[in-house]
């Protein structure tokens, strides 16, 4: 009896040590994230005069580290809002895109690309998982191979091809180029559709349903959780991307690109840390709101590659 209690105590302590060790790591991670974000917000409400360090009567004066001492100022946000524009050089003239136009470009880019990649991955995932043609196996194997076979440096060629097809620097062009199924989303849909029993399809067939109705009215609704999760993930990743739009749609600056330009701005009025940080906080608002609304969609279980057993 005593021995049993001892064994249990030893097990419990090993459980605790393991859990505590991970918890400590996670807590450190969370702290680094919280402190840096808190410091950022705190800095945005300081005046530059308070933030910058300078020497006064032999003493270093200024407040980079602590809470604002001269009160909270929202002036940085006002300035950032006013100067948050991107200039695009057209052939003959320069076009200025303000904050709203950048948000609109971001929305068009993200919504279009997320829709095309979700639809294409869903359709191909459905086709390969639900139809037992040999070609389906080839497609699945091909996706795995392309994901494992790293083709590096195809960007110049892609730009050249897009230019020759007259779709370079256009929204429909980038939607088409991003609408590929050679990605993890395809594998997620494949796994999802594979899990849905064949009986659903068989029952619908007996009732006279056509393949299109079976897909749209029976199987896809069963996978709606995954569909919306994939869409939200894709939307967020496209919204946050600034390099692809910078290269492929240079005439339509997106908000993330605006942030990149804003941090390097030469405009004197806003070339200081508090205003720069205020600018990027302002631009992050829409995606934070989007995440707050749709974060439950990300609690759906996703699986790629399956599990053993």
């Amino acid at each position, binding site marked *: 009896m005593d021995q049993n209690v001892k064994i249990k105590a030893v*097990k419990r302590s090993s459980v605790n040590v*393991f859990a505590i060790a991970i918890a400590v*790591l996670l807590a450190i991670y969370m702290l680094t994230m919280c402190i840096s974000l808190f410091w950022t917000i705190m800095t945005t409400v300081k005046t530059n005069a308070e933030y910058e360090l300078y020497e006064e009567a032999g003493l270093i004066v200024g407040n980079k580290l602590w809470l604002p001492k001269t009160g909270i100022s929202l002036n940085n946000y006002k300035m950032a809002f006013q100067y948050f524009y991107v200039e695009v050089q057209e052939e003959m003239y320069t076009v200025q895109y303000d904050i709203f136009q950048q948000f609109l470009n971001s929305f068009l880019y993200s919504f279009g690309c997320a829709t095309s990649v979700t639809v294409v991955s869903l359709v191909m995932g459905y086709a390969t998982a639900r139809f037992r043609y040999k070609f389906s196996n080839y497609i699945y194997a091909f996706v795995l191979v392309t994901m494992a076979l790293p083709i590096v440096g195809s960007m110049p060629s892609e730009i050249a091809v897009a230019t020759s097809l007259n779709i370079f620097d256009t929204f429909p062009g980038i939607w088409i180029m991003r609408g590929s199924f050679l990605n993890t989303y395809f594998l997620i849909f494949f796994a999802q559709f594979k899990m849905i029993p064949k009986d659903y399809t068989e029952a619908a067939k007996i009732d006279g349903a056509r393949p299109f109705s079976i897909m749209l009215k029976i199987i896809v609704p069963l996978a709606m959780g995954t569909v919306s999760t994939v869409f939200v993930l894709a939307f967020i990743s496209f919204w946050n991307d600034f390099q692809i739009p910078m290269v492929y749609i240079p005439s339509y600056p997106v908000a993330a690109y605006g942030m*990149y330009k804003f941090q390097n701005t030469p405009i004197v009025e806003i070339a200081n840390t508090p205003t720069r940080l205020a600018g990027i906080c302002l*631009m992050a608002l829409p995606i934070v709101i989007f995440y707050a609304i749709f974060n439950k969609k990300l609690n759906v279980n*996703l699986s790629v590659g399956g599990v*053993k057993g």
Partner: protein
Amino acid sequence: MKEANRKKLGDKDELIFYCCIIALPLLQIAIFYFYVNFNSVLMAFKSYDKMSKTFYWDFGANFSLFWKELTQTSIIIDAFKNSFIVWLFTCVLGTFLSIVFSYYIFKKWVLSKTFKFFLFLPSVLPSILLVIVFKFFVNDAIPGYILHFTGKTVTPLLIGKDSLMPTILFYNVWVCFGSQILIYTGAMDQIAPEILEAGKVDGVSCIREFISIVVPIILPTVATFVIANVATLFTNQANLYAFFGDNVSYSNYTIGYYLFELVNKEGNGKTMYPYASALGIICTLIAFPLTLLARRLLTGKEEA
């Protein structure tokens, strides 16, 4: 007979439907994967004429330029070395930590939901925002706090020669958990509860459960991710562009960043497209066997 006819018609219907739904995605792949990559190979054997604004055949020029850079400068060697180090940190360390953190969340231990939120946060916030926050924090705040608490003056971490690369590596691991956590916790949730219950009855500790039950079961998922990650060895820019734009010193280049710079740097125009393609082909040839090796190691000989 009627039944057989109906089945035949149904099969034909299915085949037509199947062909219709896969046609457009396959066309997209035909153009933007096969043709683009084929064209990339051709481009590697061409040069760009600025005057006529056309590409012309110039066999070997780009590969000899590569050889020259490899033997006469340290750009390529440094870029390969940095790419490998970045990959090692983000893929090996990042994946290991992601699995451990996912296990914590899967077990629903204290504050697991809060931790999940913070681990996923970098995937939600724009990378450029995190880069800027991180940049100002490590350059302005950290030296300030060190000075305040210890009285020591520290060079800002992204400016110091010795601290720059470790700081970049830290950042890349710091932000890499989001989607991996989502996938690994998803895989762990699929483990049959009976298996875990059986382990508990046998008195298996949590560490043993993690090492001997959970990790082996989710290994196919991990393998898929790691294999896909090997492919990013030479495309990972380590966020260098977001941190420094065009102003990265050659010794800190990664291959991914170098390729992006060749294409994107102002003033380069299309002149460097062919060289970028040639460098891409060389990197592909190096990364392919590495990927196969990773696949063999992770999925076993029979599946490789």
